[in-house]
C-alpha cells in the first residue's frame, strides 16, 4: 500500500519534471529570441550631410531631413530623421528634433527662437534646454562637423 503511494508520487513528480523541462526550455528559448532585439538591434550612428554650408542661413536654425541607410533587424532599411542645425561662424549646434517627452518631432518656434512640441506643448529654448511643459530632458545634441563645405551630422545623439 505504502509502496503504491510512493510509486504514484514518483510517477507524478516524473511527469511534472519532464513536462516542466520541455515547457521551460521551449518557452525560454522563444523568450530569449523575442527579447534579444531590445539589446542587439541598436541603431548605428551615421555621418550624414545636412546640406551645403553656403545654403544654410547663418546664425539661424534650419530644419533638415536626414536620410540614411542602416540595418534594422533583418532588413537594410532607409532611415529618416528630423534635425535642427545652426552654423554661427565656428560654432555649430545640431539637435535631434525628437521630443524628450514622448518622442514627437518638435518645431522651431519663431517667437522664442527655441522649440515647441506640438504634442503636449513642451517648450525648449535655443540651446535645446527644456523650459516648460512635460519634457523631462533637453533635446539631444547631435555631433556635427564641416567637411568639404558640407555640414555633416551624426545621426546618433550624444549621450548627454
Amino acid at each position: 500500500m505504502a509502496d503504491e503511494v510512493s510509486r504514484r508520487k514518483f510517477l507524478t513528480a516524473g511527469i511534472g519534471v519532464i513536462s516542466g523541462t520541455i515547457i521551460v526550455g521551449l518557452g525560454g528559448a522563444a523568450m530569449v529570441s523575442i527579447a534579444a532585439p531590445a539589446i542587439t538591434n541598436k541603431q548605428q550612428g551615421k555621418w550624414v550631410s545636412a546640406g551645403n554650408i553656403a545654403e544654410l542661413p547663418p546664425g539661424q536654425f534650419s530644419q533638415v531631413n536626414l536620410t540614411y541607410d542602416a540595418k534594422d533587424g533583418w532588413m537594410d532599411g532607409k532611415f529618416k530623421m528630423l534635425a535642427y542645425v545652426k552654423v554661427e561662424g565656428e560654432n555649430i549646434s545640431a539637435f535631434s528634433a525628437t521630443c524628450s517627452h514622448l518622442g514627437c518631432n518638435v518645431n522651431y518656434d519663431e517667437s522664442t527662437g527655441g522649440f515647441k512640441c506640438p504634442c503636449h506643448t513642451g517648450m525648449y529654448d535655443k540651446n535645446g534646454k527644456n523650459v516648460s511643459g512635460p519634457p523631462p530632458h533637453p533635446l539631444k545634441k547631435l555631433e556635427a562637423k564641416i567637411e568639404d563645405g558640407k555640414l555633416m551630422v551624426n545621426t546618433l545623439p550624444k549621450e548627454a
Partner: protein
Amino acid sequence: MFGKIIDLLEERFTFKKSLQEDVFEHKVPNKLNFTFCFGGLTFLMFLLLVATGIAMLFFYVPTVDHAFTSVEYITFDLPMGNVIRGVHHWSANGIIVFICLHMLRVVVYGAYKNPREFHWISGVLLFAVTLGFGFTGYLLPWDQKAYWATNVGVLMPKGVPFIGDHIVSFLMGGSNIGALTLSRFFALHIAVLPLITAVFLLAHFLMIRRTGVARPL
C-alpha cells in the same frame, strides 16, 4: 444524405445529445431583457474581427516597405477589400462599446458577485487583451497616424522606475520603431493575443454555463 451521416456519427459519439444537454437546452431566467445581449454582441464583434482579419491576412504584408502599399491595395484595389477592412475597423470600435455596456450591465445587476467572481476577472482580462489588440492593430497600416500614435504609446512605460527604458526597447524590438516593431506587433496581433483571447473566452463561457446567468432583479 447529411441526415444519414449525422445519424451514423450520433450512433458512435452521441455528440447531439451532449450538445443538446450542454450547450443548447440549458435554462436561462425568463425575464432577460435586451441588456443581456451585450455579451453575445461582443462575441459577434469578435467573430467578425476574426473573419475579416483572416481575409486581410491573405493580402497584408507586415514589413516596413510593403505594409502601407498592401493596405492600400486592400483598401482601393481589392474587390470588397474596403468593406472587409471597414467591417474590421468598425467592429474593433464596436467591440469596445459592447464590452463597456456588458460590464456596466454586470455591475448594475451585481452579477459579478459570488459565485461569479471569476467570470468577472476573466472578463476584465479579456477587456485588457482587447485594448492590446487595439494598440497593436493601430500600427499595422504603417501610415503617419499609426507611426506617431505608436511612437507616443510605446514610450509611455519609460516612466516605470528602473526598468522603464528596457520595457520600451523590448516593445520596440530595438532602439527605434522600425522593421522589428512592425513584425512583433503583427505577431502579437494575429497570433499571441487571439490565442490568449480564445483561452479566456472559453473559460468565460464554461463558467457562465456552470453557474447560469445571474437572475435579473
